């Protein structure tokens, strides 16, 4: 019983701390890239790109112009930019998370200027390029498999990868290891993966893993999780594949029962370590 209350308190506290409102993650940190979408302006400054030029800017970096849907998906997880830019199909708009007097007329959502007839108008650009990085990133999909760089080939030396999983408020993350082979080392000082049951790699340390034994499944206490993978200057191994799925919140009436029985055992430590 005591554990139950404690867990609940922790959850509540963290939500406050991370500033979740209306299912959107409000943080002092604005994402410059979310769900593969990012904003670009011309080297010469703001509002200098025609539609054709905007396309070239995105393609130059290996991506393409983002669609309205992609931009909205990014906005939902905190992508906020106060500058109108070209999207796919000649549309122009910008994503607003936090309403302000100077930006977006006090509204939130995609401020949509519609599909432009004059393609020589000059705006910025919103690009979509989800696979720009070879490892790491911010995941918002309800489920996903991610791998060590180069998997199924061996990973390289001197790798650093950060994965941030951010799901909808109320959801939790069920993490399971499909394949796992990192340089075995006492204390995991060489190559390792670390799990944090929090937004960053400071709070909520869950564990550090290496070797070739599959680590146990892990279910987060909140809707966010951070994983990082580091390899050192020598000796590599097979790498890993990790799967996560969103655990939907159970209906209010049965919440107490179900949640605690499933977490009571498994997440005992995680709850404790979540706030230092």
């Amino acid at each position: 019983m005591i554990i139950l209350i404690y867990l609940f308190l922790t959850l509540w506290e963290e939500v406050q701390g991370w500033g979740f409102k209306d299912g959107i993650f409000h943080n002092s940190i604005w994402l410059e890239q979310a769900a593969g979408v990012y904003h670009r302006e011309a080297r010469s400054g703001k509002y200098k790109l025609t539609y054709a030029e905007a396309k070239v800017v995105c393609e130059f970096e290996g991506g393409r112009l983002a669609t309205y849907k992609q931009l909205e998906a990014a906005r939902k997880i905190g992508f906020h930019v106060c500058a109108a830019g070209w999207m796919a199909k000649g549309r122009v708009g910008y994503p607003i998370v936090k309403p302000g007097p100077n930006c977006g007329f006090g509204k939130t959502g995609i401020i949509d200027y519609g599909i432009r007839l004059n393609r020589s108008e000059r705006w910025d650009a919103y690009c979509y390029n989800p696979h720009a990085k070879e490892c790491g990133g911010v995941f918002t999909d309800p489920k996903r498999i991610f791998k060590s760089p180069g998997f199924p080939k061996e990973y390289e030396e001197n790798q650093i990868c950060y994965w941030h999983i951010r799901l909808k408020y109320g959801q939790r993350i069920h993490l399971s290891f499909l394949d796992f082979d990192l340089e075995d080392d006492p204390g995991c000082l060489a190559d390792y993966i670390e799990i944090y049951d929090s937004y960053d790699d400071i709070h909520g340390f869950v564990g550090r893993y290496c070797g070739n034994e599959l680590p146990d499944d892990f279910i987060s206490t909140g809707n966010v999780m951070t994983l990082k993978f580091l390899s050192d200057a020598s000796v590599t191994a097979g790498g890993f594949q990790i799967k996560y799925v969103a655990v939907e919140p159970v209906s209010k009436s049965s919440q107490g029962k179900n949640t605690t029985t499933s977490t009571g055992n498994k997440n005992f430590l995680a709850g404790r370590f979540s706030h230092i």
Partner: protein
Amino acid sequence: FSRTVDGVTFRSSIKEKTVGRALYSQARAKGKTAGLVRSRSLDMENFKTEVNVPAGAKVQFELQYQEVKWRKLGSYEHRLYLQPGRLAKHLEVDVWIIEPQGMRFLHVPDTFDGHFDGVPVISKGQQKAHVSFKPTVAQQRICPSCLETAVDGELVVMYDVNREEKVGELEVFNGYFVHFFAPDNLDPIPKNILFVIDVSGSMWGIKMKQTVEAMKTILDDLRAEDQFSVIDFNQNVRTWRNDLVSATKTQVADAKRYIERIQPSGGTNINEALLRAIFILSEANNLGMLDPNSVSLIILVSDGDPTVGELKLSKIQKNVKQNIQDSVSLFSLGMGFDVDYDFLKRLSNENRGIAQRIYGNQDTSSQLKKFYNQVSTPLLRNVQFNYPHPSVTDVTQNSFHNYFGGSEIVVAGKFDPNKLEQIQSIITATSANTELVLETLAQMDDLEDFLSKDKHADPDFTRKLWAYLTINQLLAERSLAPTAAAKRRITRTILQMSLEHHIVTPLTSMVIQNEAGDERMLADAPPQDHGCCSGALYYGSKVAQGSVPSWAHTPPVTAAPLFAQGARVLESTPPTHMTTVENDPHFIIYLPKSQTNVCFNIDSEPGKILNLVSDPESGIAVNGQLTGAKKPNHGKLSTYFGKLGFYFQHEDLKIEISTETITLAQGGHTSVLSWADTAHVINQRVRISVKKEKVVTVTPDKGMSFSVLLHRVWKKHPVNVDFLGIYVPPTDKFSPKAHGLIGQFMQEPKIRIFSERPGKDPEKPEASMEVKGQRLIVTRGLQKDYRTDLVSGTDVPCWFVHNSGKGFIDGHYKDYFVPQLSSFLKWP
């Protein structure tokens, strides 16, 4: 760590991690009292315990640990987190501090918004201090009728040790030594500094505001001799100036305006931004725009992982490392919690810098400034520690790129106490204007004595500190080890050392158990990356011993002490004759051709400056300033040389030697040496050697030198004061134009001494002397040379010229007054 449950005490031991875990699971499975202690660092050590406590049991926790306090911004800081969560009937925190060197200051800043004003009681002695924080229940309440406690925060104790007199402190005990090095009395070295600021979209909002605010004060703090520029980058890289400019007021003001106008947006192209910074520095260096004696720094402020350009972190690391010149240090500031901090850390550590995480909140600006202040004042470059004796082994990192004011370098090592009674260290470094060699001899008996007298002191700390430093360095080495075998070898050493010295490392756990061994607790080290020296500002390297520059030729000490106690011998061979000024100034002029000493006294007033040597042709002036005794003796106030000034015009070097310090000034830079250190300095070919508390030798050239002897008197002597004596060996290096009270005799005048006869005092015969066309009556007398015996001196027979050398010296002694210690004599 020990813990008492119902009177049963549990004690701790360090076990290999897997062993520890196994023991813990055993106890837990048996349903025994078991606990888990974890420490985790977020600027603090945090021990959490989970304990199964039998109902109604009384538990007492006792945590004993040791941590290294690194000196930052001129002080040591101890933070105690106090969060009892409720009113406590008895709450007491006691901090005892023991510092053999003595404490310069001790301060308990108000960290509770004035609530506990006056509650911490500080009692401070010379070497020991005690802070007691003991708020009563009434004082703990937030308000008189409240039930909440105001004790929710941290108690901070700050202090620094005395080090005005000595730059290095060698502490030796039981076969281990620790060398603390924190000089302050030096001019800052000019720096070439490039600020590389991330202005991508993710910096939007409070992070950018705080960065701008911090940058404005940082730019204001630049010194006029510094050169700087600002690079801001998102997907594009922009520069405020394309090359380094001097930090003049107008340039700084312009840079501040530039930074204020920045609107963050877009991606993060770290690769290109850093390569640009490196390029600007390399170009400036290739074009000879950088002062060869300056320090180059890149300060990267970023909150994120790269999103534009080169995205592969290992590739960026490679690019930076390949292009950066090995004189440049890269410091990184990671803004916010979700920064890919490990990347910045690796990047800095392999380029002679360190990284620091800056938590993105209201406090960001002051965190940024605080970090910058730590590296804003480079005082020394290429600092190397040498311990020449072969029985010194296992020295920790002993070569450091820079030394920054306010911080401290710590080096430790082992030695064989049977072979060596004293440890000698030689530190070589480059300051703003000189090459420096500092020697220290360790005094070990004092420390042992001192520490054994206090129950709070740990006399074994030298050994533990050595082990701690060594383990941390091994952990850092390990992450760069090229093969699995090398890693295994290092792992074995670390494990062995942590077990032997009782240190919790990533490879060990602390197991706590009761006497019977059936109830246990377990403690793990924090899962932190030991890439760098946890908390220290420096990322040093190891170099072979004995790479002391040849000009600093100092013979290594042998097992026999260098100076026998009591006998203060400065030179082993009997001294050759020299021209000397000693005491209340007695001049002894040695005339080598006639093999004669002629002496005279000059009695004048305190404050007056007498010219001793003035040679405009070779650009050398030597002057002495008189200081008075504390009071007249037999109706006469004696005067002595309290300060001597040397001016080498061609080198633009001024040396001022007082009874307290030795100050070198050259081209606007000054460095201060102390009589308390043995040191050698080479500045513009002029060599200056200080022999601790004894003598300074200034050697401007081959065949010319000046020695200044320090005479210390009993501090409470009613009359006498400390003073200086000067010794000049005969030389032909001065030009014929040389003048001054001593200088005029460098071209030896012809003298004839004749008709020696008994004087009024039968002990002191008289004679006539013909010199410079005059006939004088001189008296046989004795003067003192103190080079072999600093206390009583050796007698030097001489012919004494009366009336302040009248007739022997050109003109009147008052003609030799000059306005400044660096003045040349204007001879009519």
